[in-house]
């Protein structure tokens, strides 16, 4: 599973970090999303799908 983020769309609400903290983080200086890993590790798939669904800004796209 691959995940793509769009930092221009991100509003820093942090929903993705709550959903999949092993994959997403927020930049220290402005709270914008960053990926911790390029490939989604085993066990985080559901969380990443949740993140795609709950992200309020449409900033997360998952490719299976």
């Amino acid at each position, binding site marked *: 599973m691959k995940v793509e983020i769009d930092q221009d769309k991100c509003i*820093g*609400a942090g929903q993705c970090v*709550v959903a999949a903290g092993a994959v997403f983080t927020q930049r220290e200086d*402005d*709270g*914008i999303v960053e990926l911790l890993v390029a490939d989604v590790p085993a066990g985080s798939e559901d969380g990443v799908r949740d993140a795609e669904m709950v992200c*309020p*800004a449409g900033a997360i796209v998952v490719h299976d």
Partner: protein
Amino acid sequence: MTRVLPEVPAYPMARDGRCPFDPPPPLGGLREDAPVSRVRLWDGSTPWLVTRYADVRAVLADPRVSSDSDLPGFPHTTPGVAARRGRVKSFITMDDPDHARHRRLLTSDFTVRRMEALRPRVQGIVDGLIDDMLAGPRPVDLVQAFSLPLPSLVICELLGVPYADRDFFHRASRTIIARDATPEDAVGATDDLLAYLGDLVDRKDAEPTDDLLGRLTAEQLRTGAMSRAEIASMGLLLLVAGHETTANMITLGTAALLREPGQLALLRDGGDPAVVANAVEELLRYLTIVHLGRRRVALADLEVGGVLIRAGEGIIAATDAANRDPGAFADPDALDITRKARHHVAFGYGVHQCLGQPLARVEMQVAFETLYRRLPGLALAEPVERLPFKHDMIIYGVHELPVTW
């Protein structure tokens, strides 16, 4: 040819007094039969009310839909809110790119990581408040003893607002969110708060402090990037949004859980932070305390749920109806703290989704986890039917919650 139009219903609608935790019943009917339909507001205007989950999310995510309350056609919540227009402008009523520019000044202060780092401090405050409750008389009003002090203390520390001034800003906030506040009172309370926050900015300019308002003063005021009035408006938004909402969630959530002891026991005896976190999301969904819809105006013609909305027409996205949409949540009227509810829209959706949600989550998780664990005998001291529900406020809740243990 003329067509007889069905009568346009008045909005907001009244809740059923017997089901004070449920949205007004007519909303369910509209969601079923006329999910995008006109309603009539206090000023006679007839904006569109959108009640289905998918449509609500689509509207709130649409860049052709504006939050700018200065635009003609904007559906103002109350006469008081309409009268405050022009006096106070913060990013909650701005569109991008201005909205994003202001919001991004604050996103680093409210990241999940920063708010998690506050958890021990929040735990300390919660334990202190419960110690005081245990040492004091019974019954006690949970609002004054617990729900209101917790978020007020936390937001005061974050912003750098003296907690000693709480009586003043609690009163002013209450006026701002009272549905029946006269325009004069709403404007007066707003001006008082802005003057207070402006003075605070001056003090921080003279003597820098290591808190959010102090930092904005140093980095934005001194560089000329933001004016004193802009910082005061931003401070007002954070101060009011930062305490009224969480306080009402804690109180109303407790009232709802005390009515469903099975759910309360699951939360209390789960012994698992994930159970508590999930319960908080379900309570947010079930209660949708910001209950009078998200207010917007169309910037262009657009189609929502097959209905054409014209540029300049007002739109109300009924998040309370959306959070009870069976298309998004099975058996939506049941409070079930084990269900998947994270996709609720109680914090809104789109670029304006709540900035303070990571903070609100930490506060609610610690409050709910600790309160029922330390006061296992917690009970209402008044029957639910006698509780003063906040039908008269923009943010729903109860004015008082007498409890004992």
